[in-house]
């Protein structure tokens, strides 16, 4: 059986950081945001994670071979890494040459390579479930599953265990787990295929594709 962790660690330019800014009791720090006069509590991404995302994107943006980023939210110690959610953020957008998800990444807190503070982005939607603030839509069931998997307490937000953020660049022609050249969308599906069989109960990728 193909093993995911050694392959992830073999990709050049990867980083592994804490996803959230926490204290020693694993309580996640929160920040306040005012949206249409309504205050929102938002979970804080770790400074290390933000630096890794910004550095990777800014250093690759001008590279025509760069297709975007792969990310894996996971838990566990090295050698026993359990993926919880696998995704990608592409350089090219549906309508723009540079996707709005990664454009001006240093100041793009709302979208932040899909890990932004806004609703319809991972941190915003997860915060919505935890803190139940007003929004244009109800908290999403997908992120209720995330909240149950990650947190022992919602308010204050306390993690069950440390949550890591794996990040890697993906370039045109790079080889996937199959040993075949993969585009970014194709390698994302290869990673989920392997993870769904090896870590099916923990994996939070459940949506239709």
């Amino acid at each position: 059986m193909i093993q995911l962790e050694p392959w992830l660690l073999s990709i050049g330019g990867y980083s592994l950081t804490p996803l959230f800014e926490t204290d020693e009791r694993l309580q996640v720090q929160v920040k306040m945001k005012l949206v249409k006069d309504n205050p929102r509590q938002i979970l804080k991404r770790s400074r290390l994670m933000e630096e890794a995302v910004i550095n990777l994107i800014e250093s690759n943006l001008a590279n025509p071979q760069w297709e975007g980023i792969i990310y894996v939210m996971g838990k566990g110690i090295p050698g026993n890494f359990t993926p919880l959610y696998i995704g990608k953020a592409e350089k090219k957008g549906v309508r723009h040459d540079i996707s709005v998800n990664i454009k001006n990444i240093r100041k793009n807190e709302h979208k932040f390579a899909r890990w932004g503070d806004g609703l319809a982005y991972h941190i915003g939607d997860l915060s919505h479930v935890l803190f139940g603030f007003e929004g244009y839509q109800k908290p999403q069931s997908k992120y209720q599953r995330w909240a149950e998997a990650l947190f022992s307490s919602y308010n204050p937000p306390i993690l069950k265990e440390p949550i890591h953020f794996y990040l890697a660049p993906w370039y045109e022609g790079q080889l996937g787990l199959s040993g075949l050249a993969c585009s970014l969308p194709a390698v994302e599906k290869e990673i989920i295929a392997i993870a769904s069989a090896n870590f099916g109960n923990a994996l939070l990728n459940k949506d239709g594709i």
Partner: protein
Amino acid sequence: MTKKDLLIRWMAAYEQIVIPFSTIDYKINVLNIIQMIAEKTAGMSFEDSIYILRMWTDEGCIPIYIGRSNAPVTRWKSHLTGLIGGKKLYSRWQRLLLTEDGLMNQRVDLMIVLDSMIKKPPIPGFPCTIGAVEYQLVSLASDAYPATLLNHEGNRR
């Protein structure tokens, strides 16, 4: 072996249930397609299934949508209603498969592979669970046929 070869080889091994859609230039017959899905899966032992919507082209029979369902009849009632309505994600389906008058403009069939049938993965060395097989097929089709794949999440921008 190329990604196209892997797809062709895997599909050829599991063509036990194939439902042809309506003939080109004729209106799509939803009731007939649903009835055929129900008949061909009736009495079969399965808990889940992979389905592949395929289009006949000069390159042969190529996958254009890949999905998974434990109730293919219900799922395809929904897909076909979406195709005819052409709203949101189904607008691409409609543009590819129907004329402006709602007639079929491609030769299309639907292949259904029951979980009880699957004995080998599309990509050698990969897992054979139904979820893993679905993701492998989307991954392969995403690179082999990027222009025609209708899966929203599997498609490149």
